[in-house]
């Protein structure tokens, strides 16, 4: 199989990540639940992962890193824990349902929402963020990159606006953490939500929320913490405040190895390689008759190329690619309903080709050759 569905989850994973998970599963106790060596080893490893994530995303303290099972959980904690009835929240049509659905829930409870629109190339106008601010606006929630088009948003620019206007700023970095530099202090981000299993190359079931100092969402979950057991409520202190229940220690061992892998290569090199692969594929397929490519390829972008081939639905195209050519892509709606509406692709969907640092040039050429053959 030629795997070009890295925006869903990266594959292959670095061997060091796999080895770390296996080692943890052989040796690790439950973090924070006792003082014997197996439990302490788990706590130490998770703390190392917390420190690594804090350094990676520019947090001053390890306790500002909350581990979750994915970006969706992190977004739910941030959105539901920081906003409520009566608040006005600004977001964009680029968002994934992991942002949209928590916001719609809040809307049903009395919050109000405004959406920054996108043009047919999936681009936003940054002036629209400011134009939508009202006296009751509490914050801005937006993705760093569309999971459909791969277009990036200028997070630093939006963060500056949020900071100047006293708004909370929540960022969905599901498609960019591990490729693009993300620093919550430089970018004035209050809550950065990431997943471990995409560009970070970690295991599924890992992710996190990186909070600016002083930002304290209400807990989404309550339960076991290993500390302050006679309190009737979840402990107030981070990270325990937002981490009820046993953490995915085995997965976090893999995530720690993944941070080491990325730091060794360097994000600049990862970006260079992903941009090379994306450009190579885009130039090969965009000239094929009958193919429509979505998104803005004149700017730096995530390694995603979504397209359609005339005469086929995206599900038909992706199934033919899988069955006849052994090429894995993602068709359909990609949990991004408003982005498809903006692109006019609600009916056809789109077939998404997404690459990682470990994608080969041969994979790109095989996919382009398959599309060329199918267009004839």
């Amino acid at each position: 199989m030629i795997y070009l569905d890295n925006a869903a989850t990266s594959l292959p994973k670095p061997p060091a990540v796999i080895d770390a998970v296996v080692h943890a599963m052989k040796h690790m106790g439950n973090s924070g639940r006792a003082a014997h060596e197996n439990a302490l080893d788990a706590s130490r490893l998770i703390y190392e992962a917390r420190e690594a994530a804090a350094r990676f995303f520019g947090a001053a303290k390890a306790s500002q890193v909350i581990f979750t099972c994915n970006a969706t959980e992190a977004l739910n904690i941030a959105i539901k824990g920081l906003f409520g009835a009566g608040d006005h929240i600004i977001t964009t049509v680029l968002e994934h349902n992991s942002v949209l659905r928590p916001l719609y829930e809040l809307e049903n409870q009395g919050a109000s929402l405004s959406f920054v629109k996108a043009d047919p190339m999936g681009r936003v106008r940054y002036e629209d963020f400011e134009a939508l601010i009202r006296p009751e606006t509490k914050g801005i929630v937006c993705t760093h990159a569309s999971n459909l088009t791969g277009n990036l948003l200028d997070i630093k620019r939006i963060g500056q606006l949020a900071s100047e206007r006293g708004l909370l700023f929540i960022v969905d970095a599901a498609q960019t953490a591990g490729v693009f530099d993300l620093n919550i202090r430089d970018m004035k981000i209050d809550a950065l939500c990431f997943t471990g299993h995409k560009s970070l190359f970690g295991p599924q079931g890992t992710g996190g929320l990186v909070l600016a100092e002083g930002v304290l969402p209400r807990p989404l979950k309550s339960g076991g913490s290993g500390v302050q057991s006679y309190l009737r409520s979840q402990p107030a202190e981070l990270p325990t405040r937002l981490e009820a229940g046993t953490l995915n220690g085995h997965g976090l061992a893999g995530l720690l190895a993944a941070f080491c892998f990325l730091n060794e290569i360097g994000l600049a090199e990862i970006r260079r390689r992903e941009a090379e692969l994306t450009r190579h594929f885009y130039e090969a397929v965009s000239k094929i008759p009958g193919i429509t490519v979505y998104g803005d390829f004149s700017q730096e972008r995530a390694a995603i190329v979504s397209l359609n081939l005339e005469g086929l639905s995206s599900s038909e195209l992706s199934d033919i690619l899988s069955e006849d050519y052994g090429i894995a892509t993602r068709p359909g709606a990609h949990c991004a309903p408003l982005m498809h509406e903006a692109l006019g692709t609600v009916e056809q969907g789109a077939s998404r080709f997404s690459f990682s640092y470990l994608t080969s040039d041969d994979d790109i050429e095989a996919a382009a050759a398959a599309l060329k053959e199918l267009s004839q």
Partner: protein
Amino acid sequence: MRQKQLRFIVTFHTTAEAMALEKLCRTLGIKGKLISAPRALSPDCGIAWRSPIETASAVKKAIAESGLEIHGFHEMEL
């Protein structure tokens, strides 16, 4: 039966605080270890840092200089 002696104990709000202090003390070469939090200091479960009593001022200084948050300092026969 292990003979009891006066020890310096640090208690924490979170496991992450405990991990941070252990790492700090290891870096500075301060002797001690993480233990189950003594029942007399806290009815909660959780872990605590136990050091020889003579290291108390070094541990307190390290915590103050690093800005590390902890729950409290204690001296007790353990």
